[in-house]
């Protein structure tokens, strides 16, 4: 037992994130929403639960588990809990593992395959872009890649969200220090201009690289128009969907991708038992789902 734990117990401030009830909550959240907390990250889940318990005046983890499973309260409470889990997660350049894998493995493969078809364009879709952190990260990433290695390629970035207010913030492109905590100084200089209250605004030429639009992923008629894609990113969005809509949306993603295209989820999300057409690929530090080209291996082994 660590000194800290001992002190916690002596002061009556016991750290109960080891309470086995949190493991049950973890499994419940994973089974219903597809977002997973490893043992190392269990304290984050416990923290989110505790904030909800305080808010809802619920005494104890066991009682909270009941709230999450009782028919009358579970759907609303699960949604609130998911909000707590994902809160503060957004910032620019959040998923360095995904970007490194794109840069070093997927982009070389995709450009090689597409050039064989005479194509010089890649279409990337940020599905559920929220307040714009992900599409701007992608815009900077692809602008850099174009300069570095792919001068004659065109990278189209589509960004959609259901929420009008989020989209407005995204189109505005003004971010404070917290959202920019992972953004390199060089990028801040190159792609941003000073805005009010010490914040930074995305330069117009970078903004022009992204097509923002409102889209409800459950609106099948409109989702069907999202086609000929090479990469789809949909992070921490599907966790809010029930199993049936999740299956449907992922099926649309699959159809919308060109053969050989890739689908990224959030770093702790899973498609287990949601879709068995996508093939799970391991890359250094991350995973991605692949729409396989028949007769081709994902990577030489």
């Amino acid at each position, binding site marked *: *037992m*660590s*000194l800290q734990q001992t002190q916690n117990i002596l002061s009556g401030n016991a750290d109960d994130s080891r309470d086995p009830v949190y493991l049950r909550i973890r499994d419940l959240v*994973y089974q219903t929403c597809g977002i*997973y907390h*490893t*043992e*190392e990250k269990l304290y984050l889940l416990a923290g989110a639960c505790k904030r909800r318990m305080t808010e809802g005046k619920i005494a104890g983890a066991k009682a909270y588990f009941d709230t999450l499973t009782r028919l009358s309260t579970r759907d609303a409470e699960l949604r609130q809990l998911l909000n707590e889990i994902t809160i503060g997660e957004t910032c620019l350049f959040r998923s360095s593992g995904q970007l*490194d894998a794109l840069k*070093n*493995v*997927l982009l070389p*493969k995709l450009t090689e395959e597409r050039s064989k078809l005479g194509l010089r364009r890649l279409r990337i879709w940020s599905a559920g872009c929220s307040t714009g952190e992900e599409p701007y990260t992608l815009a900077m990433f692809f602008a850099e890649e174009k300069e570095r290695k792919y001068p004659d390629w065109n990278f189209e970035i589509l960004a959609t969200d259901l929420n009008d207010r989020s989209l407005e913030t995204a189109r505005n492109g003004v971010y404070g220090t917290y959202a920019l905590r992972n953004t390199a100084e060089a990028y801040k200089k190159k792609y941003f201009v000073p805005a009010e209250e010490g914040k930074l605004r995305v330069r117009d030429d970078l903004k022009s690289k992204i097509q923002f639009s409102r889209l409800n992923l459950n609106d099948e008629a409109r989702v069907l128009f999202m086609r000929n894609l090479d990469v789809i990113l949909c992070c921490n969005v599907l966790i809010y969907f029930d199993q049936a809509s999740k299956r449907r949306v992922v099926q649309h993603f699959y159809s919308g991708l060109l053969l050989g295209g890739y689908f990224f989820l959030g770093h*702790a999300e*899973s*498609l*287990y038992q949601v879709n068995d057409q996508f*093939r*799970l*690929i*391991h*890359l*250094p*530090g991350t*995973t*991605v789902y*692949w729409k396989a080209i028949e007769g081709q*291996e*994902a*990577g*030489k*082994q």
Partner: protein
Amino acid sequence: MIATEPKKELQRKISELRALPAAPAILQPLLQMLRQPPDKIELKKVVQLVQMEKTITAQCLRVANSPLFGRVRPAESITAAVMTLGIQRMEDILLTSCFHQILQPNKWVTPPTDFWRHSLGCALVCKEFAERIDYSDPDRGYLAGLLHDLGIIVNSVTYEREYAAVFAEARNSGLPLDEVERAKLGFTHSESGGMLAKAWQMPELVVEAIEFHHDVGSSPRENPLVEMVHIVDLLCRMRGIGYGYEEWRAVELAADPAWERLAKFCPRLGTMDLIRFTFDMDTYVERVKATVDAVYRRGDA
């Protein structure tokens, strides 16, 4: 750079290696102990073994007193150290220390901490993987995982100069180590490791796992340990505890021939939630890094 018959030459060098003070005296009894169920292991015997090697005694005390275990008063006797660490952790440290002695500090072609993170990581992950797929002997999985890259040490001793160049090339190109070895040396660390393991009379199934983990198709008989080590090795290399460099490639485990072969022996593999397992691995990775860093504090390696 190497004689025309690389394997014959290697065999000769390895037979010479046997005469070196290569296998520490406590290695064999230790391995035998590891083969017993935990409740059969006698604390007294462990303490006796530990006391036989001065450097190992010192290392155990140091780890037991590291912040990782948060003792209030330092452990002064080896018995106290063993009790703090627990038997399983003790074995990790002992085996690590043993193999560390084979190679003088200045002979390592890669930082020893990288090597041990990978070996201990594979051991832990292999045991856990074995349990999830109902493989009959998870502890054997642990041993095979721990020893599977023994050949890296063999190569470092027998082909010191050439091997440094091989490792440097693998690191610079980001190619799998065994590919570069095959091209430059004519054999891989799996083959040389297998030869030494045989010479040290390690359990036959484990010897095969070491010898064929990069060439599962050549495995002479049905031994799922070979496929399991192959898969777990890949997983570890994709999840931050590889050879100490990133291999920039895509790996589809379910399409690997080893996966299909393993599924025949362990049908539960077919329904395993691989992505959840991948997430869970991050917990081991942290644990392994902490252990290895405690054994080899900076400057000691």
